[in-house]
């Protein structure tokens, strides 16, 4: 050896590289005899909780959301079973009790309108229509939003650009004007048609959220691992990414329910929604307003019902977000 490496030479290297102890010690014993492993080492006997159980516990801690969920379920169940729950039929005319203010007499607690129809019954039937519309909108809009947002987020680049510009385009449309035009052109009688029209313009918000979520998820190592294992795009999107995005999807879908009920009511109020005799919440307010200022209950009770439903939907949405996506929580526990 010459003097070529004066600066770096270790004067008298005697040792070897430290080698991990592989052949002896308790670690090796566990390796060779899995039977000998104790429960506390393997963790098998520890009671495990699924993600859903954790989410449910977090949701239950959100008192207001729980109360609102109960209220909301009650309201929607009443709507769903309207023919059995409502004290009268929605079109039952009783001229002797026309224009009655809220009274326990005959159980007209929301009062009656100019031709004596019981407004409580009409509100309950209105909830039924609104809930139906909201459900269809939520399902359709979620489907469209997830597909468009998912494709944009997963493929990114050009695909993302094209799909998101399209989404922006829909977003910039003045919603109400489009709805009114569409209702006028396509006809607006049936709840289903109204629901489809609302769904076609309300998926944008969800698409953006899903895109963002997918953009983040596609960088996850387990997505790369799935790719390295030979999984195709569809499998990765549906099986690996979608379940991880379920939190934001559920939250956004919940808020869409509220949005749909509100939009449907606005359409109904303006007379472009579902047509009589089917009662809807918005139409009931419009009718009440048309009946004159004296009959305040005709406007107040359907209006309060809408407010109550929307408040509940929003609180439930809040609770769900806290439960499903703990990172977004405002207050840490």
């Amino acid at each position, binding site marked *: 050896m010459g003097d070529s490496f004066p600066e770096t030479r270790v004067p008298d290297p005697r040792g*070897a590289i430290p080698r991990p102890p592989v052949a002896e010690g308790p670690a090796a014993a566990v390796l060779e005899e899995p039977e000998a492993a104790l429960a506390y080492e393997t*963790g098998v006997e520890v009671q495990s909780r699924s993600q859903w159980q954790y989410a449910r516990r977090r949701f239950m801690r959100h008192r207001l959301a729980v109360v609102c969920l109960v209220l909301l379920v009650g309201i929607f169940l009443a709507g769903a079973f309207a023919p059995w729950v409502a004290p009268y039929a929605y079109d039952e005319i009783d001229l002797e009790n026309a224009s009655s203010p809220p009274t326990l007499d005959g159980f007209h607690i929301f009062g009656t309108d100019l031709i004596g129809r019981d407004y409580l019954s009409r509100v309950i039937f209105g909830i039924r229509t609104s809930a139906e519309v909201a459900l269809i909108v939520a399902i359709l809009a979620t489907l469209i939003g997830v597909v468009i947002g998912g494709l944009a987020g997963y493929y990114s680049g050009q695909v993302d650009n094209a799909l998101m510009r399209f989404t922006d385009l829909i977003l910039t449309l003045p919603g109400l004007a489009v709805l009114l035009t569409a209702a006028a052109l396509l006809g607006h009688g049936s709840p289903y048609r109204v629901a489809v029209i609302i769904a076609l313009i309300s998926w944008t918000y969800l698409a953006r959220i899903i895109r963002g979520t997918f953009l983040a998820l596609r960088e996850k190592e387990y997505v790369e691992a799935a790719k390295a294992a030979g999984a195709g795009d569809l499998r990765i999107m549906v099986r690996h990414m979608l379940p991880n995005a379920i939190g934001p999807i559920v939250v956004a879908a919940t808020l869409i329910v509220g949005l749909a009920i509100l939009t449907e009511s606005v359409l109904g109020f303006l007379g472009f929604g579902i047509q009589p005799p089917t009662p809807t919440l918005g139409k009931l307010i419009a009718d009440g307003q048309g009946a004159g200022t004296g009959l305040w209950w005709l406007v107040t009770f359907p209006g309060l019902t809408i407010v109550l439903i929307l408040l509940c939907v929003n609180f439930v949405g809040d609770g769900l977000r806290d439960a499903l996506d703990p990172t977004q929580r405002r207050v840490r526990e």
Partner: protein
Amino acid sequence: MSDPILSIRDLSVEFTTEDGIVHAVEGVSYDVGAGEVLGVVGESGSGKSVTVMTVLGLIPQPPGKVTNGEILYRGRDLLKLSSKELREVRGSEVAMIFQDPMTSLNPVLTVGEQIAEAIETHHPEMRSEAIEARTIELLDIVGVPFPEARFRQYPHEFSGGMRQRAMIAMAIANEPAVLVADEPTTALDVTIQAQIIEVLKKAEEETHAAIILITHDLGLIAELADRVVVMYAGRVVEIGDVETIFTAPRNPYTIGLMNSIPRVTGTDDLLVPIPGSPPSMISVPPGCAFHPRCFLSRGRDRCRAEVPELEDVSAGHLSRCHFVSELAGYDPGLAAAASHA
């Protein structure tokens, strides 16, 4: 070495970034023989991971781009495959064990489902009971206790070592011919590392796969590898069998690496680090990329002006250094470590 099963030929990969073009891999060539364990070492950013990611087609393009070279697997160029053909190779012919088992398993699927999926992807004809039985067998092979119970658990119910075992089970599920292990023990603590090394050895025995072992850990190389590729700044600087690399390294960078290893029996308290830090891959020093840190260069012009070629030192031993002759006879004194392998 037997006939190469995987042959990387003159591969160059670059990434376009806002700061400029990063030449992550520049003209890298090495062969992997059937059934051999090839260790790839080098500092962070030396291009060792990018090279193998390119083999699996996992480089995001853009910003990444393969500018040159070919990757021959059983005579087929993997870079020219369609995405469908590439999917068929991934996971069944060439499989990968990832660095961090904590993030490489999908948190919403059970461990069993994820291993089963790796099998199902390549054997859609298999019945689900058969897949489940095979999955449980795989968990047993990699030393996961109570595989039947563990099959139904989620990743968060697994410890880090157990997850890495599950990742290895997933990688060997289809008995691949080449297994790429990208720093498989880096994210684990030392006692678990030892167990994972044993599992890797067992996986090799079970599948007879060639293993490309990427690591910073020269101890792991000494333990497992048959041959070693040393990379620096996107280039291969030395290739040789493990004994040669540990007992007679002929590249200043490899020697620097060897001298920075702590020795169990050594009485000297101070390690000898390589001075300086790895170059930014946007502005690699001209000439030999290692010259600013090299003890051999000592400001000689040739190191600054000319990129050295990878030249034969002896049979199967190549080094990239202008003054390799000045290193003749050097022995870092690691014979004890290398003899184990």
